[in-house]
């Protein structure tokens, strides 16, 4: 593939991202039109933004890589993600909005009235965010390497620097417009090569045939849950992964804050439906890449499987077409890293700023600093830890690392949210205990994974996909400890719960019935 074209594509994406971030607000929002209602973030926009931010390296490259190696089981990823949003909508979204919380630590503070629980949550946000950022950096390094042959560190460094500059310069405020654009860019980048292939196949002047390709593939690869790909205990692993995806989505820092912008329950529901549709549309394509990859890039099965999406166009269409398509896909991949990394960095930086920096800076400067600067420092810190982790860790499949982030989220924030919202007798001590136990267990598994997981059998399965045991453990801890410490049930818990479950007024402008 042509490095020059790909680099140009990547460059354009970077420029577009930063440009829209910095100037988009001015272009799209300055009018003398009075009407506020027309400006609200509509479900369609919000959904595009959520999807755009959500589709990361794992979705763009990782899923195809996994399907390529392991077969059709890996479609679980797509299903898992979508169920995660459904869980979020049904169990968590509305009560969370009514609580007035913006981030997860905010919810902890308002529900449990405890600064300690809040601090634990902040720490977990940084941890989960780091686990999620790590594969983005790896993916960027991989893409750069595939495109230019540069060592992986270069691509990762490029993304890290650009993200920090973008976030610090304020390019991620008014995030909706930016991330919505990213979604459509990514979809176009991923889908176009497939359509070109289809056209080429239809017009018959090419040797490929999608169905032929399938026939050529090993039969068992197309069967779900086969042990193709050398994974032991596929049943446990799949269950565990499903659990992590279903219940971890609600605990991802950059997902929950997007639901803040929905004005009411109706909008939140609409948004979720559109998100599912957009995600579904997107996830149609990686398996196609994988199927084709089996025939056209079989060397990748045992090599860098995660690059199948990048390599495929030039393998199928040698020459300029392949180069162009390759450039497009590379640009799309970079957009994926940028958007998710930016969204994550913003979420993490927000938490660092609020909980760690503000109080210290006030003490240091006597209240004499600019809010903007503390956020900029926070953005730098938010990216530093993942980058250091990236330099220190070895090769891990993109999707597996992301799965670990989900597992930690499912073992810590899921019990806190679900039980906090639906169970009146949850105590502050119980909440803290659950967060710590779940967090330590899942993080330990993640750490072992990153350093060097056991290579076979049950130990491997348990460590690579820990959610199936860490999540029930966390739930159990919360319940048992809460029952044992009824004296630390937060005062006003009953009132909190009423507030969480009382529906808001439906917003109408001119209404004969009394307004609130």
């Amino acid at each position: 593939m042509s490095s020059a074209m790909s680099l140009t594509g990547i460059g354009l994406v970077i420029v577009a991202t930063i440009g829209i971030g910095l100037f988009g607000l001015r272009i799209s929002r300055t009018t003398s039109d009075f009407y506020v209602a027309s400006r609200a973030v509509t479900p369609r926009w919000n959904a595009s933004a959520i999807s755009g931010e959500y589709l990361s390296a794992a979705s763009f490259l990782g899923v195809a890589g996994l399907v390529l190696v392991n077969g059709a089981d890996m479609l679980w990823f797509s299903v898992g993600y979508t169920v995660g949003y459904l869980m979020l909508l049904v169990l968590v979204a509305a009560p969370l909005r009514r609580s007035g919380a913006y981030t997860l630590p905010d919810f902890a503070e308002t529900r449990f009235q405890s600064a300690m629980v809040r601090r634990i949550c902040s720490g977990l946000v940084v941890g989960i965010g780091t686990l999620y950022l790590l594969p983005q950096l790896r993916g960027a390094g991989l893409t750069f390497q595939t495109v230019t042959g540069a060592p992986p560190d270069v691509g990762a460094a490029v993304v890290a620097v650009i993200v920090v500059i973008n976030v610090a310069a304020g390019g991620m405020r008014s995030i909706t417009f930016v991330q919505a654009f990213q979604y459509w860019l990514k979809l176009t980048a991923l889908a176009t090569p497939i359509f070109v292939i289809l056209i080429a196949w239809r017009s018959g002047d090419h040797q490929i045939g999608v169905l032929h390709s399938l026939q050529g593939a090993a039969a068992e690869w197309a069967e779900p849950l086969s042990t193709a790909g050398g994974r032991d205990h596929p049943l446990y692993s799949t269950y565990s992964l499903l659990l992590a995806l279903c219940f971890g989505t609600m605990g991802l820092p950059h997902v929950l804050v997007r639901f803040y912008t929905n004005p009411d329950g109706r909008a939140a529901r609409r948004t979720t439906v559109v998100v599912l549709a957009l995600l579904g549309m997107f996830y149609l394509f990686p398996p196609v890449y994988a199927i084709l990859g089996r025939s056209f890039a079989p060397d990748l099965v045992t090599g860098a499987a995660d690059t199948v999406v990048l390599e495929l166009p030039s393998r199928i269409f040698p020459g300029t077409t392949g180069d162009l398509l390759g450039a497009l896909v590379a640009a799309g991949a970079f957009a994926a890293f940028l958007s998710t990394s930016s969204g994550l960095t913003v979420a993490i930086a927000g938490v660092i700023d609020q909980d760690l920096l503000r109080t210290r800076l006030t003490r240091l400067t006597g209240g004499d600093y600019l809010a903007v600067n503390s956020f900029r420092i926070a953005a730098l810190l938010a990216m530093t830890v993942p980058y250091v982790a990236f330099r220190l860790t070895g090769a891990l499949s993109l999707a597996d690392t992301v799965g670990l982030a989900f597992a930690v989220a499912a073992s810590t924030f899921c019990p806190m949210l679900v039980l906090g919202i639906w169970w009146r007798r949850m105590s502050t001590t119980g909440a803290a205990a659950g967060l710590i136990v779940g967090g330590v267990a899942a993080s330990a598994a993640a750490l072992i994974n990153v350093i060097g997981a056991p290579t076979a059998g049950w130990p491997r399965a348990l460590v690579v996909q820990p959610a199936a045991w860490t999540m029930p453990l966390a739930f159990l801890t919360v319940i048992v400890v809460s029952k044992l410490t009824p004296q630390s049930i937060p005062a006003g818990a009953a009132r909190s719960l009423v507030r969480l479950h009382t529906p808001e007024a439906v917003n109408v402008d001119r209404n004969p019935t009394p307004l609130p």
Partner: protein
Amino acid sequence: MSGYGRGVFARRRKHFGTPADKATYATLHTASLASPYLREGLTPAAAGKASRHLRDLLGTAAIAICDSSGVLAWDGVGGAYESNHRRDARSLAGPTLRTGRTAVLGVHDVACGDPQCPIRTASVAPIVIEERVVAVLVAYSERSSAALVRATEEVARWVSGQVELAELNKERTRAMEAELRALRAQISPHFIYNALAAIASFVRTDPERARELLLEFADFSRYALRRGGEFTTLADELRNVERYLVLEQARFGERLTVSLQIAPEVLPVVVPFLVVQPLVENAVRHGLEGTTGIGRITIRARDQINEAEISVEDDGAGSDPEVIRAVLAGESSSDSIGLGNVDARLRQVYGDAYGLVVETQVDAGTKVTFRIPKYSSGVHASP
């Protein structure tokens, strides 16, 4: 009988007079003399008046009360000694102000070099309110002793208690004032008069428009005068501002130009109600009333990740920054009173860092900006 009574009386008298008792009574009496001044809070005036009695309690050559801005009060030896030591007092107090630990400073740090000066050592004890060191009490003497250090600490602790009481009183007064302010924010007679006058002018010429305007006015009033619940969403606030602008447009027609730059992400943010409209009203007053020509008002709401930043700008007559400063400090009652009201309410809810920031110059327009945290404990859109 009287002999017995006298005897008893005499015995009581003796009890009344042990030196220890006398000392205790003297101490309590002195303390009670100091406390009324401290109830006013730790201002230089109050500290000055109280310090005389505090020095009585300690019996030292001099005492000083310092905070991070400098010496609040000094009592004791005067003249040249005072001015020398006063200068150094702030730096002596530094470590204790930072760490909250009592410090005992010896001849090296304290002595001024003059052999006649009775001040050679100092004990520095912190005055603490709710775990924050707000000031220190410095006791200067010729020689330091454990007893003096202890006494200084005890007096400082007592002073802390008195000042905390003062804070509580102030807190209560603030809460009451806040309620009053919220009530005052709801009604602006100036606006009502002008709006109704404008509507009246349309009744004959364009009755349909007059009717529309009356309905807008009704909606506006209902919002502004609603009972209870201190908070609403920014979206609702801006809707109210729209209604207000529609009404003002009836008055000014083409002269009023409004530009809105609203980031949709901040529309759900919970704000105290009636924080934006008074600012816009102020902008209209200064930008349009009393001037001719077109007045341009720009309302911006930006997303700053953890906060929303809202600003109202006009290109009208502007004001003298000193006047504005006075209004914000609550010292004057000019027609920019809305500004002071909003500023006070914002600071009361979110803290002193979240007040209004006003940039203005005469003939250069005005820009008022404020920030609202997206999440603040205890804040919900009602209920």
